[in-house]
C-alpha cells in the first residue's frame, strides 16, 4: 500500500515519542504509540522508531505494554542488538505478581524470534512451566515449541520433554492440549508425540473438558493410535460416538477422520460412521456461514464417492438458494447430479432447469452441463429441456447447450436423432469458440442426418478469414472433411476452397499442416481417408453403462478434513471446457506388462500390419494393429441398443426354432476356466479386450453375482472376403458353475465342456490350485456363420481371459 509522506510521519512520531511531556502524560503517550501501530499495520515501515519504542516498553500501563509488544515482535528481527534491551524489562515482568503480566511477558519474549536471546529465555520458560497460574503455563508450554523451531538443530533438554509429558496431566485442559502441540513440534523428527495406550485413554477421558479447538487437536493427534484389540477399538469408538454427531462441524469432521483411520480395516464400521455423520453434515450444509456450507458440500462429495446413495432422500437440501454465491451453486449442482434416481429425477430436472437462466453465466452453464450429465441416464427428459433452452436464443446458453449435447451424444449415441434435429439454426446464436467447435464436431460426425449441415459449414468457410480461434479452424477442417465423405456432392466445392485457403493463406502452422495432411490423404483415395477420419462416434469406455463404482473409503480418507476437497472443484470445471470429445475422453491405456504378456501369447497369430500407417489421435489406432489369419475389428461400431436388439430378438427366435442351421447365424456356448476374472476391474478387462479388438459393451461391477460382460467384434479371415459379427456374453454365476448347455442348434460350435460339474468349486483359492474349477460361461452368437472364424475368436478370447486371470492370480 503506497503511503505518501511515510518518512515525514516517522519523523513526527519520533519527535512525539521522545518528548518528555508526552512521556509523562500516560494518555498522550499511549495515543502516540497507537498512531505508530496504526501506521505499521497499514504497511508503513516504522522500524526506525525501534529504540523509542523499547523505552516505551517500561511502563505500568498494560495496554501500552501490549501495544509496544506488537511493535517489537514485528521489528525485532531487524534490530537484534536493540532487542537485547527489551529482555531485561521482559524478565522483570516475568516476576510480576499479576499472572496476566507474567504470561504477556513470557509470550512476547518467545515471539521476538531472535536466536541470540535464547539463553535469556530458557530460565523464565522453565519457571513458567511450574507457574501456579494456568495462563502462564499455557504460554510457557508453547514457548518451548517456539524455542525449538528457532534453533531446530539444538537438542532440547530431555528434562523439558519429560516435563511436557507430565504436564499432559495438568488440570487445565488448554495446557494439556498445548503440551500435545508443543511435543508434536519438538519431536517432529521422531514422528511426534508418543501415543500409547495410557496417553490415549487419558486424552479420551479428558476430551469433554476441552473446548472445540482442543477437541479437534486431540482427535487429530489420536489418529496415530492403533488399538491393541478389537474390544479396545470399540470402547474408543463408543466414547467418540457423541462427538461424531457434534453440532460443531470441526469436531464432527475431526471425529470422522479419527474413525476412518482407526477402523481402516473395517469397512462396515466406516460405512456406519458415514451414515451417522449424515445429519451433522447436512446441518453444516445449511449453516449460516457460506464458507462453512461450501466446506460441508465439498466433504459430502467425498462421502458420495463411497456411498452414492447416502444423501438420496435429502436431495432437496442441495437445491440452490437464489442469493448463494456461484461457487456454492456449482458444488450443489455437482452433488445433485450424483443424487438423481427414478423418484426424484422429475423434481431435480425441474429445479436445474430453473438455474439454466441464472444471471451468472457460469452458473447457467454449470446447470446446463449438469442436465447433460443426468441425460446419460435419463436422456429423453433432459434432451427435451436442452432443446427448449435453444429457443431462448441467448448466446451463452446456446453455447453451453451445444457443448452439452456433444458430450451427451458422445456417451449416448441413441440421442443423436434428437440432437441432429435440434441443431438446425443454432449457429446464428453461437458466439464463443467453444460452442462453435462443438457445433462443428456434431456437424462433422452426424452431417448426413442434419439436412442444413453443408449450408452451415459454408457460412463458416466463408468467414474463415476473419476467424480468430485456432480451435474453430481445426475443427472446421475436420468437420468439412467428414461431411465430404458422406455428402460429397454438396461439400466438394467448399472443401476445395477451405483447403486452398488454409494451405495458401493461413499463417498458423498447425492449421496449415492439418490442411496439408488432409489434402494428401485425399490423394491416397477415399477409402484411406474414410479409415482415418471416421473414428468413433461414441465413447468406448464403460463409465456410462456401469455407472461409477463405489470407491473404498480408503481412497479419500486421507484427504478428508484437509483443504484438498475444497480445491478440487476448480480443476474439474477447468477441464470441463474442451474441444472434441474423442481427444479428451479417458483412453483406456493398457498397462505395459499386460500388453506384453498378451502380445507374447498371440505371437503366432499376430503379424504386424504391412503398411505401418500413422493415424491421428482417434481411438481406432489399435484397430489395425492386430492382423492375423484371423483379424478382429471394431468397425463398423455397434451401438448398445443395436446389440441388445440382436441379442434378445435372435435369442428368442433361436429358442423356438430347432432348425437354426438354416439361419444365418450360430450360437455357441462354452466354459473357460479363469477363476479370478470376475474380480478384475472393468478397466483392465476392457483394456485387455481392446488390445485384441474386442469391444466390451456392458459390465456388472466387479464382485457382484451373477457377473456378466457383453462384448462384440467383427472377425475377418484373410482368405474369405466377408466378415462376421460376433456377439458374446461372459457369465459367471458364482459358487455353482452351471453346466454349459450345449446348443443343439449350432452344428459344431461346441468345443468342450470342461470339468464344470466339479463340486469342489467352492473356494476360489482352492480352485486355482486345482487348475481352475471356477469357470466363466461364454455364450457367443455369430452372424453370418463361419465356424473357422468362431473357433479362432474363441481361442483369442480364451487366451485373453487366461492371461488376465493369471495376472490377477
Amino acid at each position: 500500500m503506497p503511503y505518501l509522506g511515510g518518512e515525514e510521519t516517522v519523523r513526527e512520531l519520533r519527535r512525539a515519542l521522545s518528548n518528555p511531556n508526552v512521556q509523562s502524560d500516560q494518555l498522550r503517550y499511549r495515543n502516540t504509540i497507537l498512531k505508530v501501530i496504526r501506521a505499521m499495520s497499514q504497511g508503513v515501515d516504522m522500524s526506525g522508531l525501534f529504540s523509542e519504542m523499547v523505552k516505551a516498553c517500561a511502563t505500568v500501563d498494560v495496554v501500552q505494554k501490549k501495544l509496544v509488544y506488537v511493535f517489537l515482535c514485528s521489528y525485532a528481527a531487524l534490530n537484534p542488538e536493540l532487542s537485547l534491551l527489551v529482555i531485561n524489562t521482559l524478565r522483570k515482568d516475568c516476576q510480576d505478581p499479576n499472572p496476566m503480566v507474567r504470561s504477556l511477558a513470557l509470550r512476547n519474549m518467545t515471539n521476538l524470534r531472535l536466536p541470540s536471546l535464547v539463553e535469556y529465555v530458557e530460565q523464565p520458560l522453565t519457571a513458567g512451566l511450574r507457574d501456579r497460574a494456568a495462563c502462564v503455563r499455557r504460554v510457557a508450554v508453547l514457548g518451548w515449541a517456539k524455542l525449538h523451531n528457532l534453533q531446530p538443530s539444538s537438542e532440547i533438554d530431555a528434562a523439558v520433554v519429560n516435563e511436557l509429558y507430565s504436564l499432559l496431566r495438568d488440570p487445565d485442559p488448554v495446557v494439556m492440549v498445548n503440551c500435545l502441540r508443543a511435543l508434536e513440534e519438538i519431536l517432529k523428527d521422531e514422528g511426534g508425540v508418543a501415543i500409547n495406550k495410557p496417553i490415549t485413554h487419558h486424552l479420551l477421558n479428558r476430551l469433554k473438558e476441552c473446548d472445540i479447538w482442543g477437541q479437534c487437536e486431540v482427535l487429530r493427534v489420536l489418529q496415530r493410535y492403533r488399538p491393541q484389540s478389537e474390544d479396545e477399538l470399540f470402547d474408543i469408538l463408543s466414547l467418540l460416538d457423541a462427538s461424531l454427531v457434534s453440532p460443531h462441524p470441526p469436531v464432527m469432521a475431526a471425529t470422522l477422520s479419527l474413525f476412518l483411520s482407526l477402523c481402516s480395516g473395517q469397512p462396515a464400521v466406516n460405512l456406519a460412521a458415514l451414515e451417522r455423520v449424515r445429519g451433522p453434515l447436512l446441518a453444516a450444509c445449511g449453516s449460516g456461514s457460506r464458507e462453512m456450507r461450501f466446506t460441508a458440500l465439498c466433504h459430502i462429495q467425498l462421502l458420495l464417492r463411497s456411498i452414492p446413495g447416502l444423501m438420496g432422500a435429502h436431495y432437496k437440501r442441495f437445491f440452490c438458494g437464489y442469493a448463494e454465491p456461484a461457487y456454492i451453486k456449482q458444488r450443489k449442482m455437482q452433488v445433485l447430479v450424483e443424487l438423481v434416481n427414478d423418484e426424484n429425477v422429475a423434481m431435480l430436472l425441474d429445479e436445474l432447469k430453473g438455474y439454466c437462466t441464472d444471471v451468472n453465466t457460469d452458473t447457467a452453464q454449470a446447470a446446463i452441463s449438469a442436465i447433460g450429465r443426468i441425460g446419460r441416464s435419463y436422456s429423453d427428459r433432459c434432451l427435451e429441456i436442452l432443446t427448449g433452452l435453444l429457443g431462448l436464443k441467448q448466446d451463452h446458453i446456446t453455447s453451453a447447450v451445444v457443448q452439452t449435447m456433444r458430450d451427451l451424444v458422445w456417451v449416448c449415441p441413441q440421442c443423436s436423432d434428437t440432437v441432429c434435429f435440434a441443431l438446425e439454426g443454432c449457429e446464428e446464436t453461437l458466439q464463443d469458440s467453444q460452442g462453435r467447435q462443438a457445433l462443428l464436431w456434431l456437424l462433422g460426425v452426424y452431417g448426413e442426418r442434419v439436412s442444413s449441415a453443408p449450408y452451415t459449414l459454408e457460412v463458416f468457410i466463408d468467414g474463415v478469414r476473419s476467424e480468430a480461434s485456432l480451435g474453430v479452424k481445426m475443427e472446421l477442417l475436420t468437420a468439412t472433411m467428414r461431411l465430404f465423405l458422406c455428402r460429397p456432392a454438396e461439400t466438394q466445392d467448399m472443401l476445395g476452397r477451405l483447403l486452398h485457403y488454409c494451405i495458401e493463406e493461413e499463417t498458423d502452422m498447425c492449421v496449415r499442416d492439418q490442411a496439408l495432411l488432409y489434402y494428401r490423404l485425399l490423394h491416397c483415395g477415399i477409402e484411406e481417408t474414410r479409415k482415418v477420419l471416421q473414428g468413433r462416434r461414441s465413447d468406448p469406455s464403460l463409465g456410462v453403462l456401469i455407472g461409477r463404482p463405489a470407491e473404498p473409503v480408503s481412497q479419500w480418507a486421507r484427504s478428508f478434513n484437509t483443504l484438498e476437497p475444497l480445491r478440487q472443484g476448480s480443476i474439474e470445471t477447468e477441464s470441463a471446457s474442451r474441444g472434441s470429445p474423442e481427444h479428451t475422453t479417458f483412453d483406456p491405456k493398457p498397462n505395459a506388462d499386460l500388453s506384453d504378456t498378451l502380445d507374447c501369447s498371440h505371437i503366432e497369430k499376430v503379424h504386424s500390419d504391412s503398411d505401418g500407417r500413422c493415424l491421428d489421435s482417434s481411438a481406432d489406432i489399435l484397430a489395425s494393429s492386430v492382423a492375423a489369419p484371423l483379424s478382429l475389428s471394431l468397425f463398423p461400431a455397434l451401438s448398445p441398443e443395436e446389440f441388445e436388439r440382436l441379442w434378445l430378438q435372435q435369442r428368442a427366435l433361436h429358442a423356438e426354432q430347432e432348425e437354426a442351421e438354416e439361419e444365418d447365424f450360430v450360437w455357441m456356448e462354452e466354459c473357460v476356466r479363469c477363476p479370478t476374472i470376475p474380480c478384475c476391474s472393468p478397466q483392465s478387462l476392457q483394456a485387455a479386450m481392446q488390445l485384441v479388438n474386442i469391444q466390451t459393451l456392458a459390465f456388472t461391477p466387479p464382485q457382484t453375482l451373477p457377473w456378466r460382460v457383453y462384448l462384440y467384434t467383427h472377425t475377418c479371415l484373410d482368405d474369405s472376403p466377408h466378415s462376421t459379427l460376433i456377439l458374446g456374453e461372459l457369465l459367471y454365476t458364482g459358487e455353482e458353475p452351471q453346466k454349459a448347455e450345449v446348443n443343439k442348434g449350432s452344428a459344431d460350435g461346441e468345443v468342450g465342456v470342461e470339468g464344470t460339474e466339479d463340486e469342489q468349486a467352492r473356494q476360489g483359492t482352492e480352485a486355482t490350485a486345482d487348475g481352475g474349477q471356477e469357470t466363466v460361461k461364454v455364450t457367443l452368437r455369430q452372424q453370418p456363420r463361419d465356424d473357422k472364424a468362431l473357433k479362432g475368436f474363441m481361442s483369442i478370447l480364451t487366451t485373453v481371459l487366461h492371461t488376465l486371470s493369471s495376472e490377477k492370480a
Partner: protein
Amino acid sequence: MISQVFILSSKGDHLIYKDFRGESGSDAVGVFYEKVTALTGDQPPVVMSHKDLHFVHVRQGGLYWVATTTADSSPFTIIEFLNRLAALVKDYCGSLSEKSVQMNFALIYELLDEVVDYGYIQTTSSDVLKNFIQTEAVSSRPFSLFDLSNVGLVQKQLSRRLGFFSFQGGKSEIFVDVIERMSVVIGSNGMLMKADVEGEIRVKCYLPNCSEMRIGLNEEFSIGKSQLRGYGAAVRVDEVSFHQMVRLDEFDSHRILRLCPSQGEQTVMQYQLSDDLPSAPPFRLFPTIERDSGGRLLMYLKLRCDLPPKRFSTFHNLSSPDQSAELKPQSRAVVWKIPRFTGGTQLSALFKLEVPGLSSASLLEVGPVGLSFELPKLTATGVQIRFLRLSPVQPGPSQRWVRYVTHSDSYTIRI
C-alpha cells in the same frame, strides 16, 4: 495451525496483519489480494493456494478475514475460527465494518494475541477473554443502552450491544432468541416443492452472576416423525442438537433445557425441519407474464401474505404507500421493496419492461422470484419458549427478553 491472520477491506487496504509463526513472508497479503482481484466476479473461492501458501478466507461485514495455513489443516476448524473471530470482533466493537475495525485495531491485535498463540487456537470463549482484554472499544457513534425501540429486530441489536464487555457495570440482561431460517421453493404451479427450516435458540447472557437457567419449550415439541406428544397440534422438528453445556435430564419429560450460561452469546440448540411445515408458506405469488402489443414485457405480480392478520412482516431488503421498485440492469432483476406487509392482505404490482428483441421464448427466461424477508415474533415451526427461569433469583432489576424471528434464507417462487 494458522500461520498468519489478516483482515483486508474490500478495496484491499490492510487493516490487520498478524504473523504467528514467522514462517512465510509478509508479502502474503499482497499475494492474496492479487489473487482475489485477478478473478472475475466478486466471489473468490474459499481456498486459494500460492506455492506453499494456502489462503482460507471468509467474508463478513464486507471484509476479507483471511488465514494462511498448511494444506493438511482442517478447513472446518479454520473457517469456524474465522467466523468466531469475526463474531468476537463484532461483540467487542459493536459492528463489523471497515471503520469499526480500523478504529479498534489495537483491541483486535490484543484479541488476536489472546486467541491464538503460535498458530494454535487457545480460546475463543468470551468468558475467558474478558479477563484479558484491557483495551476499550472505540465507537464511531454514541450509543444508548436504553434505546429499546427496535428490540424485535435482531440485526439492529448490534449498535445497542456495543461494548458490552467493557461495560461491566451495566444493566444485567439476558436475551433468548429463537431464530429460524426458511428455505422454500414454490413451483410454477403453486405447489410447495421444498420447505426447509433451520432453527436455533441463541442465548445472549449479560448477567453478572447466573448459575443456572431453565428454558421451557412447548410441551408438545417432538422430534422425528414417530414421536408425538401432547394432545394439541404437535410442534415437530426432524433433528435436534444441543450445545454440550446443556443438561437434558428434564428434556424428555418436560421439554426443559437446563444450562449455566456463560457471558456472551451461545447457540444452545439447533434444529431442522424438512418438507413438512405445520402451516402454509407465508407468501404466495400469482404472476402473469405476457407480451403486450408494443413488444413490451408485462409482469403482473400479485403477492399475498398468508400470515395471521395481526402479524406483519418486514422486508428488510426490499419501502403501501412508500413501496419502491427498481430495475437493476446489471443483475437483470427488478427489485420490489415492501417495508411492511400485514398478514392476510395482498399487494399487486405491474411492471412494464422494454426488452430489445423480445420473443415469445424470452418469456421463459423470466423468473424465478426470490423473496427476502424477516418475520418478527413468529417461528415457522411453531417452537415457543414457555418460560425462562433464572437461579439464583437475580437481585435488582434484570431484563429478560425472549424474541422470535424467521428469516428467509432462500424463498424462491418459480414462474
